[in-house]
């Protein structure tokens, strides 16, 4: 039996009394590559944050490797890639410093940075092809390059499960392809991936399971929906909202099915 990375039962979240997640059941087993899909405001980012315990549940339960987030101790098993890099109050930080902070869950307080730490950081930076900029301040990088720094930070921690919030949003085609290549390496290595996406782009072939969130509920859970028609055209500018549009093709048929 494979391990369960995340198990949410009837997960509910409200912001100021307004329900955002209305009862989500979601189990992610190790080795799965799950895409959480949905329109803006459907609750997919909130779901990711709730899975990690960053947003408290107002109802239901969620477990990370069998423990509730507050009692979970093996945080090194999780590599979180937030939506964007926080640059803070303007104190510069180099690419290497930010990526090295991904090792924090593996480091004990009094131990100095080890050779293993340094190697993992250098490899992570090389994977996202930023070695030439390792000593530059992250503030000087473009949006796509900052996204790569975030991915490298997660890679440096060598986690079992990657949780990525919109890693493809607003990044250039080169970074999207780089992300796809990096992810396929992780998938081959048996890692678990949960990623939020508005559209999958070059990541699509890697996804083993698509979960569509609509208005705070799971609307589809199964094989990833394939884009059709205009949406499948490379370079298609995705401006319509999935949730309000009747969904065509492979998405029909499951809508009325019990999960």
């Amino acid at each position, binding site marked *: 039996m494979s391990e369960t990375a995340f198990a949410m039962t009837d997960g509910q979240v409200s912001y100021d009394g307004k329900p955002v997640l209305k009862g989500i059941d979601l189990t992610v087993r190790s080795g799965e590559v799950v895409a959480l899909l949905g329109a803006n405001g459907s609750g997919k980012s909130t779901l990711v944050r709730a899975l990690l315990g*960053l947003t408290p549940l107002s109802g239901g339960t969620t477990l990370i490797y069998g423990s509730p987030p507050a009692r979970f101790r093996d945080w090194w098993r999780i590599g979180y890639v*937030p939506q964007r890099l926080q640059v803070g*109050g303007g104190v*510069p930080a180099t690419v290497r410093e930010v990526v090295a*902070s991904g090792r*924090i869950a593996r480091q004990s307080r*009094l131990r100095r940075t080890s050779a293993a730490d340094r190697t993992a950081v250098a490899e992570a930076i090389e994977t996202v092809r930023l070695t030439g900029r390792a000593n530059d*301040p992250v503030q000087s990088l473009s949006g796509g390059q900052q996204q790569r720094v975030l991915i490298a930070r997660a890679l440096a921690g060598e986690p079992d499960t990657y949780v990525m919030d919109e890693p493809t949003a607003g990044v250039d085609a080169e970074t999207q392809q780089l992300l796809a290549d990096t992810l396929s390496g992780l998938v081959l290595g048996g890692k678990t991936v949960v990623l939020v996406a508005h559209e999958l782009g070059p990541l699509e072939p890697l996804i083993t399971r698509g979960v569509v969130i609509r208005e705070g509920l799971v609307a589809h859970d199964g094989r990833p929906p394939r884009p059709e028609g205009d949406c499948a055209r490379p370079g298609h500018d995705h401006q319509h909202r999935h949730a309000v549009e009747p969904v065509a093709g492979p998405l029909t048929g499951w809508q009325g099915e019990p999960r």
Partner: protein
Amino acid sequence: MIFELLQEQLFQLALVAALLVGLCAPAVGTFIVQRRLALLGDGIGHVALTGVALGFLTGSAPVLTAVIVSVAGAVAIELVRARGRTSGDVALALLFYGGIAGGVMLMAIAPGGSNAKLNSYLFGAIASVTPEDIGVIAALAVAVIGVVLIFGRELFVLCQDEEMARASGLPVRFLSLLIAVTAALTVVIAMRVVGLLLVSALMVIPVATSQQLTRGFRTTMGLAMLFGVLASVGGLLASTVSTKVPPGAAIVLLALAGFVLALGVGKFVRRGRTEESRVSPRMRVEEVA
């Protein structure tokens, strides 16, 4: 002249105090600036005045009561901040005004309290530092540097991205309180040297100066500590030239002068960098043409 000064015990004490402040304030300040809490030191400084006055009122050492009250104030500020409500802003303002007004009031009714004493805490009185003060300042400085050395890696993650810190399993609440308490200790260290009203300047200005010139967090902190020491020792020396020069103000003005200088140098450095990147595409176009 400096050699003669070094023989004097008063000057030795003042020099040690200035060195410790110059090292500690920017070290803590780097984290605080990164966390967008640049004015935290000011707030704690206001509250600490009540602590000083309590010391005079109860006949205990003002430095010790200042430690207790400013740590309590820092914890209160952090708790209000963590709540993240908009009314927190006003709550903090109330705390600061209460701190100053309470301090002035208690000082007026305390036996042995006077306007001169009040001023020496508000604007610093490095020349009146006693050996006992130095003992407390040195112990606090060891605590502050210890926190930076032991928790620096975690504090870096916290100040960079609190969410990331949480998703890495770091004890976010503990670390947030730790940085606030460390800032409070730094305020007390700096209080005798630059005064409570200018305490924050030594936590912020050297960091702002340093980040004009650096590319990384660690180097920013290191350089800020160097600038802090240069300013505090320089200001102290300036005050020995004439008794008219108040050391606290001299230290802060010196730090500001350093900032203006670094701003110019930094602009020059950055212009050089952007010109480099601007030149290369143009050259490519010419090659094609």
